[in-house]
């Protein structure tokens, strides 16, 4: 019975942020938190690891390598993380768990319930909810080990409420025995009788509107865009679609989005008008005017950009959380986000 454990660069002992670009590696036996899993009764045979940035920026390639190893090892269970509150690490765990799970490998991972990795896992993996930092390792490890052992033994796992994992909202295709047409008529007539039922609902991932900015004249406002607006020449190679990165650029001393200095690389719309005047996408000139007039305290000195076409929801959630974290630590009060 083979157990494989996935870690990021930090927990695999490769280093911190400076090692976030590490390519996938494979190590015999348990490493770091893997030893804690072993102590909790789950012997780890092989550890695989990848840098969080490496995975985020080279997802297809990294997945191919990691899934290749997983397929070769044919584990009885694959454990990923715990990733706690790290969005990038959680995202990688979620994606790998989903892909391995869809190929028939039992998977269990652990992270905060609002991690983009939960969305990325698409209900395929069992996700053990954790606190946001490594302080909850002691609590998470035994729960992950216990669930993993049962999965490896092909034991049936109960519902999310019974077992304490994050609800999976997994949808399974079945033949209903009645055509959609017959069901539509039944549901519609029931609705007319006051009995409103549906076979599918949107996910309930909602954030309440934050309270209004109390005093704009003292507030710092930031500009963010998914319109793919970048300096001419796209020096950092923002992808034109299916973006795997967001970028930041300085706005110090920049009064307007001049067409000589900026361009949009978004593949999802006709960029002719936007490239004549990029202020049409990122209204910098107007915001600067209002800043000069004292209507806002200040425009944040950095603007954030990515391309929002063909970008998976989990990736977009990750970007939003990361950009928001930077803006919050820079005491930015509000964002004007523009989209196409």
């Amino acid at each position: 019975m083979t157990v494989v454990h996935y870690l990021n660069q930090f927990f695999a002992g490769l280093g911190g942020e400076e090692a976030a670009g590490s390519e996938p590696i494979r190590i015999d036996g348990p490493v770091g938190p893997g030893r804690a899993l072993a102590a909790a009764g789950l012997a780890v045979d092989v550890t695989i690891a990848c840098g969080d940035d490496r995975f985020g920026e080279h997802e297809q390639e990294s997945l191919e390598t990691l899934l290749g190893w997983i397929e070769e090892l044919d584990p009885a269970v694959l454990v990923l993380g715990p990733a706690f509150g790290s969005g990038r690490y959680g995202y990688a765990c979620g994606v790998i768990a989903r892909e391995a799970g869809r190929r028939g490998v039992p998977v269990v991972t652990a992270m905060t319930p609002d991690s983009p990795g939960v969305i990325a896992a698409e209900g395929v993996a069992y996700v053990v909810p954790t606190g946001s930092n490594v302080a909850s390792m002691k609590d998470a490890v035994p729960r992950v080990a216990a669930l993993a052992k049962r999965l490896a033994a092909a034991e049936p796992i109960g519902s999310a409420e019974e077992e304490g994992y994050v609800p999976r909202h997994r949808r399974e295709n079945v033949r209903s025995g009645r055509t959609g047409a017959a069901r539509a008529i039944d549901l519609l007539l029931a609705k007319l009788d006051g009995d409103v039922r549906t076979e599918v609902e949107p996910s309930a991932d909602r954030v309440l509107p934050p309270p209004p900015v109390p005093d704009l004249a003292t507030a710092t406002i930031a500009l963010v865009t998914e319109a793919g607006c970048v300096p001419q020449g796209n020096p950092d190679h923002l992808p034109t679609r299916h973006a795997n990165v967001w970028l930041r650029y300085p706005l110090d001393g920049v009064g307007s989005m001049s067409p000589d200095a900026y361009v949009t690389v978004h593949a999802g719309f006709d960029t002719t008008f936007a490239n004549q005047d990029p202020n049409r996408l990122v209204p910098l000139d107007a915001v600067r005017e209002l800043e000069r007039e004292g209507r806002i305290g200040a425009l944040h000195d950095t603007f954030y950009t990515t391309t929002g076409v063909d970008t998976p929801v989990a990736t977009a959630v990750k970007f939003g959380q990361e950009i928001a974290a930077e803006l919050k630590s820079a005491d930015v009060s509000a964002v004007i986000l523009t989209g196409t």
Partner: protein
Amino acid sequence: MFITALPTIAQMVGANRILKGVSITYPAGDPSLAVGDEHALRRRITERALEMLSTDVGPGTVWETP
């Protein structure tokens, strides 16, 4: 807040302060206007955005720029 020409999608994904943009290809502008008029439009859009940021709203609120 979010300036976009597709406010229904913005509502669906959970944005709360949504300002309807002019067009998919130019949310904060209008190339059919003379330069001065377009600039004035962009200023009004941006002012409306600031107004939305300083107003209490319910979930999925969509405003337009008069």
